[in-house]
């Protein structure tokens, strides 16, 4: 059965997947161009643009700010999101269904809408151009990723485990830290990865609330694209793609573990 039209199907699917995967790789050769403009390397290969990335104070501070903002906003989103998902799971009522639905609002509403809102809000609070402001905004928009992955993990957890721990005398905090959390660690880590990537890549909110003091990596790339298409951007883009690849492999590993646990527990 799979043979009928199977060849055509496979060729088409292969072409579409190539369209998906290949374009990004163009940045690797371009990052090695000896020229001062975006082009494929002609007449030799040069590492100067990679050097710029690791020596230029502007790019370095962009990397530093991005790492700091993404780490702290992820920590915040993880703490609040995991607690919320566990609370909803344990309480399980129509109200908590509403809470979980509300938590995915930041995924549904276009970012530009929120960017306007948070900008005006931060003008009032004097948080424009502050690290704290960006961290909070990224944490709240990163919440949905954590809530969704942790909720998915909890769906595979037997509620009887929690009752058993309690009837054996564990307090609620003990049940949480010794029974529930250890069982959903892969889900929590996945949520953290999603929240981190979300903040790490986020551009629109930062454009609005970053002021003239904060320049994260995406913002430097954005300015670079709009101003001079410096080949250093190709080096940054290459580094980011490699980084993404590494993180994706970790996440896929975690997911396999989660599925394994789900299979084992049922």
């Amino acid at each position, binding site marked *: 059965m799979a043979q009928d039209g199977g060849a055509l199907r496979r060729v088409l699917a292969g072409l579409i997947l190539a369209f998906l995967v290949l374009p990004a790789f163009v940045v690797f050769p371009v990052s090695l161009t000896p020229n001062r403009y975006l082009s494929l390397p002609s007449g030799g290969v040069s590492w100067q643009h990679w050097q710029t990335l690791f020596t230029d104070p502007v790019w370095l501070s962009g990397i530093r700010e991005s790492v700091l903002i993404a780490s702290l906003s992820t920590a915040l989103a993880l703490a609040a999101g995991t607690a919320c998902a566990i609370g909803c799971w344990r*309480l399980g009522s129509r109200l908590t269904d509403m809470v979980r639905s509300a938590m995915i609002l930041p995924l549904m509403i276009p970012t530009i809408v929120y960017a306007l809102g948070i900008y005006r809000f931060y003008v009032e609070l004097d948080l424009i151009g502050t690290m704290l402001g960006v961290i909070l905004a990224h944490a709240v928009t990163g919440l949905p990723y954590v809530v969704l992955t942790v909720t998915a993990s909890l769906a595979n957890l037997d509620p009887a485990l929690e009752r058993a721990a309690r009837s054996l005398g564990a307090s*609620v905090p003990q049940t949480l830290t010794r029974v529930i959390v250890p069982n959903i660690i892969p889900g929590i880590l996945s949520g953290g990865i999603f929240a981190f990537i979300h903040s790490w890549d986020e551009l629109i909110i930062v454009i609005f609330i970053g002021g003239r003091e904060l320049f994260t990596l995406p913002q430097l790339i954005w300015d670079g694209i709009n101003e001079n298409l410096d080949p250093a951007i190709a080096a940054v883009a290459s580094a980011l793609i490699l980084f993404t690849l590494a993180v994706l492999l970790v996440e896929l590993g975690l997911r396999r573990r989660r599925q394994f646990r789900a299979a084992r527990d049922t």
Partner: protein
Amino acid sequence: MSAASTTFAAQPRRGFRGFYVLMLAPALVLLLGLYVLPLFGVVLISVTEPRPGLGNYELLLTSASVQRALWTTGRIAVLTTLITLILGYIVAYAMRMASEGAQRWMLFCVLFPFWISVLVRSFAWITLLRSEGVLNTALRGTGLIEEPLMLVRNETGVLIGMVHAMLPYAILTLYANMRGIDLRLMTAARGLGAGPVAAFLRVFLPMTRPGILGATVLVFIISLGFYVTPAILGGGRTLMIAEYVALQINETLRWGLGTMLATTLGISVMGIMWLMSRVLDVKRLFGPA
């Protein structure tokens, strides 16, 4: 507070509930204080600046430039959705029919671009497609074309970039739906005399309707609010709503107009989601891939 502690003393079981309710608090405070409240601010500004009333919303009907942005947005979103759904369906179907190992590889090919930021992907497209870009240089080098092909800084560029950005959403949604379909039904249809085309059209395709609907809505609403890809690949010539809003705020400082359009965009998206939630489980649609 004292009422809560007395209940705790009298009924320890309710105390446990109280603990779990408290666990919801940090996320709720964050969401309400730093997300919902600022959004209300947007709506409020849209009916108060420059003067109170619905004057800004009148512009939806009277302003030519606003209508042009709306029309551009609608047109691009519909075209993107259409192309993405067709291409996405082909891939999802091929994945469903492929062997376990091949499925894993194909899934990886979908997730990899999905995880690269749209900013980096748009930059890659610019590098490839601009008139002095890699593709045009190569084509001219081989003598296939004389004049560079105009592939970016116009609507073609926006469509290429948006379809590229949206394909993973469509494929993952469709594939999730197709995985639940028992392929033996196709075998049965063939065994009962249906040709391969009839088996696909009359057995497989109808069962993927929820997936098609979900993918269509998801791709369409995300397309409506897209900012980075159209801004970079459209080169300022193909103004979609999100970019138009940003221009109002950053260049002309017309907050009333900007927030009005943002509100309209937000309400449209919520409206579509609400309609959809009556047919499908929306939360599953947004499950991280």
